[in-house]
């Protein structure tokens, strides 16, 4: 049908559909990515322009409010510490510049490791079947019923001080189960599909079938699963840190909240001490959620609406 004999409203609708045809230009996805990039940017730009020595205890005056507020002692916020300082004399802005990317790093690393384990185990279970499948499936099912925080609390108290990487590794031990199950189910159904049979007929090796024929079709699921496990990992990490476990000497958002609670920031009305890290965590989760919703719409066109 020719373009010229469409009415104006139809042309507008066609334009909307065209925009909608490129799935990656998805407002939810773009907003989500934007929020996460903002947090990373705070870390990167902050390191360039801010004095990071202010993160040490006693480097600044105590309990100063953010710029434009007053604390209980009627002290106004000062430009040297725009987000205020905590009860230990640390500058909030530098805490965030170092802490926020750290929290995100733990989440990303943990779920990257978890996903890799999940892809490996899921493919093995789905593709090899038999005894291997039984062991992996039962293992994953058992692990999924164990509350991770419980085990991690015991582990971390036993380890004492841990590094960020160590903590990510520990958390990774609890985020591989659901990708394993997801990939196993997908592989099982894909194994029966026509194109996998065709590849077998073409004399393809198992390696080729797994990584060249099946894996590309799994990418949307892997992305979705990855984002979901980043969220889980961050929640777990922050949970541990707020309990006072996790790295003792490295600033993270969770650790800052722990110290704020410990020092009685709630009754002293030092809201910026726990409020700012909480706000940043909120932004992070909303960003991840939006990316997940966006990816869902990208890979599942039926969720996209026309209006």
């Amino acid at each position: 049908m020719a373009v010229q004999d469409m009415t104006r409203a139809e042309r507008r609708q066609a334009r909307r559909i065209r925009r909608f045809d490129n799935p990656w230009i998805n407002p939810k996805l773009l907003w989500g990515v934007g929020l996460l990039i903002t947090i990373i940017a705070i870390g990167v730009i902050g390191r360039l322009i801010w004095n990071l020595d202010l993160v040490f205890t006693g480097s600044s005056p105590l309990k100063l409010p953010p710029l434009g507020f007053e604390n209980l002692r009627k002290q106004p916020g000062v430009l040297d510490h725009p987000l205020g300082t905590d009860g230990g004399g640390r500058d909030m802005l530098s805490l965030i510049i170092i802490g926020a990317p750290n929290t995100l790093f733990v989440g990303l690393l943990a779920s990257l490791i978890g996903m890799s384990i999940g892809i490996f185990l899921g493919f093995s279970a789905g593709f090899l079947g038999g005894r291997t499948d039984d062991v992996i499936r039962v293992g994953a099912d058992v692990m999924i019923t164990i509350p991770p925080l419980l085990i991690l609390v015991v582990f971390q108290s036993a380890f004492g001080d841990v590094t960020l990487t160590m903590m990510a590794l520990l958390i990774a031990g609890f985020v591989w189960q659901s990708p394993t199950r997801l990939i196993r189910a997908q592989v099982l159904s894909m194994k029966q599909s026509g194109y996998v049979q065709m590849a077998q007929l073409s004399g393809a090796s198992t390696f080729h079938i797994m990584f060249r024929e099946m894996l590309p079709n799994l990418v949307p699921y892997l992305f979705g699963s990855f984002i979901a496990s980043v969220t889980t990992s961050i929640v777990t990490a922050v949970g541990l840190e707020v309990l006072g476990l996790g790295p003792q000497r490295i600033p993270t958002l969770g650790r800052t909240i722990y110290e704020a609670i410990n020092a009685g920031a709630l009754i002293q009305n030092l809201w910026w001490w726990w409020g700012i890290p909480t706000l940043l965590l909120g932004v992070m989760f909303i960003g991840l959620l939006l990316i997940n919703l966006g990816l869902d719409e990208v890979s599942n066109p039926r969720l996209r609406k026309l209006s």
Partner: protein
Amino acid sequence: MTDTPDKPVLTLRDLTIEFPTSQGVVRAVKALSLDIHKGRRVGFIGESGSGKTTTALAVMQLLAEPGRVAHGQIDLGGTDILSLDEEEIRQTRLSRVAYIPQGAMNSLNPVMRVEPQMWDGIIAHEGHSDRSELKRRSDEALQSVGLPIHAGQLYPHELSGGMKQRVCIAMGIILNPELIIADEPTSALDVVTQRQVMQTLKDIQRQIGSGLMLIGHDMGLMAQTVDELAVLKDGELVEHGTVRQILEAPKHPYTKDLISSVPLVGGESFLNPDARADAPKRNSSEPLLSFENVRKDYGMVTALHPMSFTLQGDTPQIISIVGQSGSGKSTMGSIMLGFNPPSQGRVLFEGQDVQKMSAVQSLDFRRNVQAVFQDPYACFNPFYRVDHALKFPFRQFGLAQSPEHTRRAMEEACQAVGLDPDLVLSRYPHQLSGGQRQRLIVARALMLSPKLLIADEPVSMVDASLRASILSNIYDLKDKYGISILYITHDLATAYHVSDFVMVLFKGHVVEAGPPKEVIGAPQHPYTQLLIDSIPWPDLKRSWGDGRQDWDPVELETEAQRAAAVYRGEVSGFDLAQA
């Protein structure tokens, strides 16, 4: 309703339906005008995408967003359908227009017994009534479609496909609608059940005297079922008339195509065997493929009873394996390809056990035994362009000399099956039609020039008008390129034309085998006779679903089970051991 007999139940006037898409507005149905009179059966025939189902959905205002009726009129026995609001159309559905869907297995609620599902319709239209009254009406409806009353107490999974489809018919007619719309009601059923379901539908329609709109693509089925035929192509009504007019003197070339695309047993062949190629030179004196007492069990069920045969493969031959779903024919195919180990016995390819091959032997076996599967939509990896499916095996088997050579081989193969290589090779699978994809799979087999091709229902999911040409592509593989073919199918008419030898399978047993002219042309075993009787012929002289209630496939099948296998003449190069 106050219709007089000459007043049509459904009138479509200049009906145009549009779907806005990113490429502009697509007209799915263009200025369609048609009447359906009381008590008449009208068939809508056409390829997928010709607008048959869209028209039917528009009659019930069930068009999927963003589709819309652009202009035209739909008049149901004096009511203007398009002016009804949501509540009024809800009242109209089922009570005045009933819809019998394509896949009955997906249309019933799996967690509800059949009876309450039938009551839902009555309650929604007439309000709550006494349970015994509801029960009486659902029993009556079930009986009228030939189901026992206790079927109402069952869950959908306890019913067979044909029974489920009849339950759907019973639900549709429970409120005595003026118009029944049946959208390919038998496309998921095999021929024997199809005949039974269509008989039921015709019977019930005659009893309640409503109009019937039957949507389908099978000319034979239409010829045996409807009074009038409407031929649709790309949303346009190209021909409309009584079945007799259309079958005997089709005017539009597309209608002629549709009629001639249905192969007839004994009719003129749609193939032109010109050249007789020799089989490729073999450096083995062992037979190409042999089954030694092969049996396959799935748990307690024996899908294939012990069977032995030898295919010499010195002259190219087409061996057909014919049977209904569940007869074990596809199991045979996957055993031959080595995808499925036999429970007992051995499958030998040139003297080598298919299950015990070394890596090198296995690659050689894969090169020489190729397959064409039923579903052309699943055979291409959606991630790659379609040439991946042709290029990859060519390289894998060491046939490619250079990228240039691969490209030339692909283009030649495409041309040999009647595809334009520039148009198809650089596309993604979803951009091609089912017919194009199936041809590409045939082209792929051609490029690899195997010694044996296993074609498992290669045309059952392709539009009827394309079946003949794809089959002749496959036939050419034997004729021009000397490839032996095992053709697995449920379609006796095509098997009659293409094959050199036919085996009829029934519940994992060979019941009749021999040259096609004898087995299908003059069947002796009761099961083969049953299969042939169930085929709907596009021929008005052969009566099929004439409403006789004495035709009972269950009884005939029991009889068939008792009868001994019939072995007819021999064909050199293929030996089937008599069980």
